[in-house]
């Protein structure tokens, strides 16, 4: 490796970017966005909701199978069929007796208490994502409507010919309204029965409890900063590297360099040095503007290296496979779309393990943890995963380059 050749190649890359001002403009826009994020951000606005709003699916958990549970299972609406998951409470994942819910989920937990001589009680706990109490609205709407129908059916069975009132309209998010509507219904049923002192009541009491799922709230500003940092790395390594490399190949200047005393290893080394440095430099500037303290964090730099290295491997793979600049651009875009779709499908359908194979699953998590200053042991596991995937991508890129080269 000769320094004067490496220096010439690096200087050439730098000057090419200086001559193509689009990349500089984009970098400046990102820096401006980071400055705005850092300056116009009151501390109290830091808390936010999940990165993706709403819930992807809702657990309906029950302590035992009763006619109410059977009715709910039989009357799941088509539009929510894929999103409602029934499970006995005994099978729920718990840690220290606390049920753990994945991100983007909620739960309606039903416990049914029968004490001799007393009216039965249905305890309903609605567990919504923190900071977003309306996220479970479609599920609650369904649950209250069907539970009401279940109680009505039960009453009709016990009192054939009873004329029960129509379903009242109520706001499922308003606990008081739900309780009031239920009490009125209980009264109407009791009146219909002409209840005697010794008869057991038919419609159970409701005990409603609404809570946030707890856990840590996603820092929305940190999420935006994470997005910018990831974008800077992606733009430099997966977009700029393959497209400019393929442009050189198409124009024949890559051949001209290959015929000069510069060896293929030196040409490759210059690309390997320039683009990750550019991406990581821009990413560090953005992160530093957002939160200067993060630049002193080892976890942040390791995360940056893991994600930058992985993106470099992906970029080199695209650069080796694509023959033209257009193919490189399309390759980078197709990769991004494919991985996004994969992660979305896995997330919405609860498919386990597959997302672990995507660098884009671990990368934003570790960078967000570093930027939010909230590094937990699980983030170190994600970092190890990201480093492993980066190594795999770089190995694959190196293997492909040796087999196919750039000519």
């Amino acid at each position: 490796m000769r320094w004067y050749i490496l220096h010439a190649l690096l200087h050439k890359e730098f000057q090419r970017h200086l001559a193509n001002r689009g990349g500089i403009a984009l970098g400046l826009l990102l820096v401006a966005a980071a400055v705005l994020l850092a300056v116009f951000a009151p501390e109290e606005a830091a808390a936010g909701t999940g990165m993706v709003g709403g819930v992807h699916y809702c657990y309906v958990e029950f302590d035992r199978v009763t006619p109410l549970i059977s009715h709910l299972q039989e009357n799941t609406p088509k539009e929510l069929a894929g999103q409602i998951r029934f499970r006995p409470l005994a099978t729920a994942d718990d840690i220290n007796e606390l049920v753990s819910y994945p991100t983007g989920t909620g739960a309606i937990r039903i416990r049914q208490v029968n004490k001799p001589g007393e009216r039965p009680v249905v305890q309903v706990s609605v567990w919504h994502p923190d900071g977003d109490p309306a996220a479970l609205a479609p599920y609650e709407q369904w649950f209250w409507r069907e539970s009401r129908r279940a109680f009505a059916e039960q009453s009709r069975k016990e009192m054939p010919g009873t004329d029960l009132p129509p379903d009242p309209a109520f706001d499922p998010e308003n606990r008081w309204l739900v309780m009031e509507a239920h009490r009125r219904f209980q009264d109407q049923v009791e009146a219909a029965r002409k209840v005697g002192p010794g008869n057991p009541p038919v419609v159970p009491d409701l005990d409603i409890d609404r809570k946030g799922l707890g856990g840590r709230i996603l820092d929305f500003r940190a999420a935006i900063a994470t997005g910018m940092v990831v974008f800077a790395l992606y733009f430099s390594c997966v977009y700029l590297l393959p497209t400019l490399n393929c442009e050189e190949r198409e124009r024949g200047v890559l051949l001209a360099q290959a015929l000069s005393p510069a060896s293929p290893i030196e040409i490759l080394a210059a690309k390997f040095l320039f683009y990750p440095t550019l991406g990581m430099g821009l990413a560090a500037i953005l992160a530093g503007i957002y939160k200067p303290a993060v630049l002193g964090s080892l976890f942040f730099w390791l995360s940056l290296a893991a994600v930058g290295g992985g993106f470099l491997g992906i970029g080199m793979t695209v650069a080796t496979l694509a023959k033209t600049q257009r193919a490189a651009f399309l390759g980078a875009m197709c990769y991004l779309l494919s991985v996004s779709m994969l992660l979305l499908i896995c997330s919405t359908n609860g498919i386990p393990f597959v997302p672990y194979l995507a660098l884009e699953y671990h990368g934003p998590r570790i960078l967000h943890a570093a930027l939010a200053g909230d590094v937990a042991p699980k983030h170190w596991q994600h970092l190890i995963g990201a480093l492993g995937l980066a190594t795999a991508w770089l190995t694959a890129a190196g293997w492909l380059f040796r087999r196919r080269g750039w000519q």
Partner: protein
Amino acid sequence: MIRLSGLRVLYGSFAAVDGLDLDIRGGELFGLLGPNGAGKSTTIRVLIGQRRPTAGTVTVAGHDVVREWASIKPLFGYVPDRENHFEEFTGRRNLEFFGQLYGVPKRRARDVLKMVELDEAADLPVRGYSLGMRKKLLLARALLHEPRVLYLDEPTANLDIHSAEVVHRILRERVKLGATIILTTHDMDEVEKICDRVGIVCRGKLVALDSPLTLKQAHTERKVDVIRTDGERLVVDMDTGPGRRQLADLVVAGRVASLRTREFDFHATFLKLTGQAFE
């Protein structure tokens, strides 16, 4: 200086070069001619290390192009048929970049720009250059490190007469300084004018190899076009006894109004040797 021994290059089952033997001496300007698909470009591709020979050996200054490629790289300069510059850089910056790779001082870029008469346009971006200027910049790049060997693929295509003359002058000067040059061209006048020797390849094989003058002598038709005083035209073959006698009789009888010997026709010779239309 450059030796090709039994060079054979296959693309699948098609032999682009089929047992080519060539020995190009140091300080020689060698013209490589041939119709489309004759194997000229493949031969050049082997010489610049972009294609491995299927069989045979190729050496440049005693170094094998496959095994000792790293030793050969600094020895040669290459002018491709398709220009390949960094469009966003100026002509000077393009040369300075390649000069850095060759480890030559910056002033060398200025010198070669002047040599190819691009010094006035040196600080303009290449995207604004004409085809001819781009071609001259390619030659300037190839000359940066004063290579001992030059490969040129149609170096004067798209050049005006003056620029072509400049290129010819530069090439002759390089040859005087001891450089070895191989050029492919379609310009027959150029071959006659500047090449020391010419190799004509067809279907991957060498069909003729000699100096333009020897080829001229070997292939000039020794025929005379005669117009008699009565207006009749005839062609007299000087290679036969009856032909020579017929011409002598006509001259002695004073019956010749006009008489013209035939000139050497490189195109006709080329067609005769290759049996194909010229590209």
